[in-house]
């Protein structure tokens, strides 16, 4: 019984922390954007403007929730949920820290360890396209519709490359459990080089990274949004809390994607010499969570940095990159990984 209480507390804690990161990211996004453009950024609300996200949230909540004429009310209302909920659920399979022994119970710092692990993550993130599509269609606006069409085509194209990249990692690590994958990456080569999958599968990592940018609709792949050509794309007609949910969903997808990239390619919560993978002390667990947070944060900052560096791709360039570059590269990588895995039988 007490283990159930512990589990419930763990789930609550992980999601409570998870929900606090998007406001922080919005602050970081604005601050980094300003610094890159030689500006200072928000600095009025609170010290260094740290309370700016709170002010934004109050503004968005108190705003009038407008439902334009001729929209499809049901789909228009549920569409933001379709963006936010999958992004939150997909975080459930990410292991965030080492096992910890509390009051005689060994607790895994991971909400769920399914039979299917990473496949569950892929399946759930593929649902987030529905929010964009339904929101775009229900808005009854041609720019929104363009955004919806673009998002569907983009998601299908890049999901293939992403899945193939993941399969390469699965083949080289031999498991679909994210937990086992983290443990497999906890040792070192030559005493100093961590055995991270990024060194086994560099090409798969690059493909996964590019596909992750496309899946989360971040620049340079934010074609569904495209403020300068589509006036905001799928969320043109949205305002107030519904718009905030789209916004939060985007950042939550970004966090989940960064966390999964850290887990797949950068050793998850392990760091040789700092975190002992097989210890169950509280101190070790805290340290592992901090390591995981730093790695994920580095990826999040990289996402933001890229956003303020690169221009948006044209649509044909996007499709060309997806179908003519990434998918053949991923297939080639898959082929060579398979040959390497079967080298004993072949040669």
């Amino acid at each position: 019984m007490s283990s159930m209480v512990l589990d419930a507390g763990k789930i609550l804690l992980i999601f409570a922390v998870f929900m606090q990161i998007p406001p922080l990211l919005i602050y970081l996004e604005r601050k980094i954007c300003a610094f890159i453009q030689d500006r200072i950024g928000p600095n009025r609300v609170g010290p260094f403007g740290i309370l700016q996200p709170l002010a934004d949230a109050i503004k968005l909540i108190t705003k009038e929730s407008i439902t334009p004429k001729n929209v499809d009310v049901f789909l228009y209302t549920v569409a933001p949920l379709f963006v936010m909920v999958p992004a939150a659920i997909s975080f459930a399979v990410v292991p965030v820290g080492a096992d910890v022994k509390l009051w005689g119970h060994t607790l895994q710092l991971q909400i769920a360890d399914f039979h299917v692990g990473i496949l569950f993550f892929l399946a759930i993130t593929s649902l987030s396209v529905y929010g964009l599509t339904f929101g775009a269609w229900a808005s009854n606006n041609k720019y929104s519709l363009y955004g919806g069409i673009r998002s569907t085509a983009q998601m299908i194209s890049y999901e293939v490359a992403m899945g193939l990249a993941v399969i390469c990692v699965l083949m080289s690590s031999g498991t679909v459990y994210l937990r086992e994958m983290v443990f497999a990456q906890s040792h070192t080569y030559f005493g100093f080089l961590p055995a991270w999958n990024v060194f086994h599968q560099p090409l798969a990592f690059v493909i996964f990274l590019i596909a992750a940018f496309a899946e989360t609709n971040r620049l340079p792949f934010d074609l569904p949004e495209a403020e300068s050509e589509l006036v905001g794309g799928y969320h043109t007609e949205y305002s107030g809390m519904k718009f905030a949910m789209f916004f939060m969903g985007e950042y939550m997808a970004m966090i989940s994607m960064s966390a999964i990239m850290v887990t797949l390619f950068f050793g998850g919560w392990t760091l040789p010499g700092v975190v002992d993978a097989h210890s169950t002390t509280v101190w070790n667990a805290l340290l592992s969570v901090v390591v995981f947070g730093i790695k994920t944060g580095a990826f999040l900052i990289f996402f933001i940095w890229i956003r303020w560096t690169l221009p948006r791709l044209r649509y044909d360039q996007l499709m060309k990159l997806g179908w003519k570059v990434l998918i053949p590269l991923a297939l080639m990588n898959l082929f060579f990984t398979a040959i390497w895995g079967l080298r004993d039988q072949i040669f």
Partner: protein
Amino acid sequence: MSNQKLNVREPWYIRWGILGLLKGIALTIKHFFRPKFTVQYPEVTHTPLPKEEAHQWKPRGQHRLNVDEQGRVKCVACLLCQTACPSHCIEITPGPAPEGYGDRDKYPIEFKIDMLRCIYCGMCEEACPCDAIVLTDKPYPVTYSREGMIFNKEKLMQN
């Protein structure tokens, strides 16, 4: 020639955009650490340029017709400003100077500037031989009608 130049195949790292990507990333991170030039307005006011440089950067607003010590308009109706004006917004009706204007033969009976057409380039000011027309730093005029945007001699002298 230029077509041949376009056909030269660049090395793969340029064609695939990898070099450009890295360059862009390096540029943005360089700017990230640069000093910022935002002015925190209500606390800190913007200090204008020093006086010896300031005349180059003077804002150009509405025109003014200067007057001499006796309150007469300085203009001698030479039409140089009208000729110099690129947008043809100055319209001068010259006439013989009335009695008492001992120093010149002509003076403007009417001096009209169409503020809607004026581009505030300052060429009239440059062309004027006797410093009669100058551009002040008064902001652009606002009226309710097109007619109100055509300024006559009296209005220009009051500016």
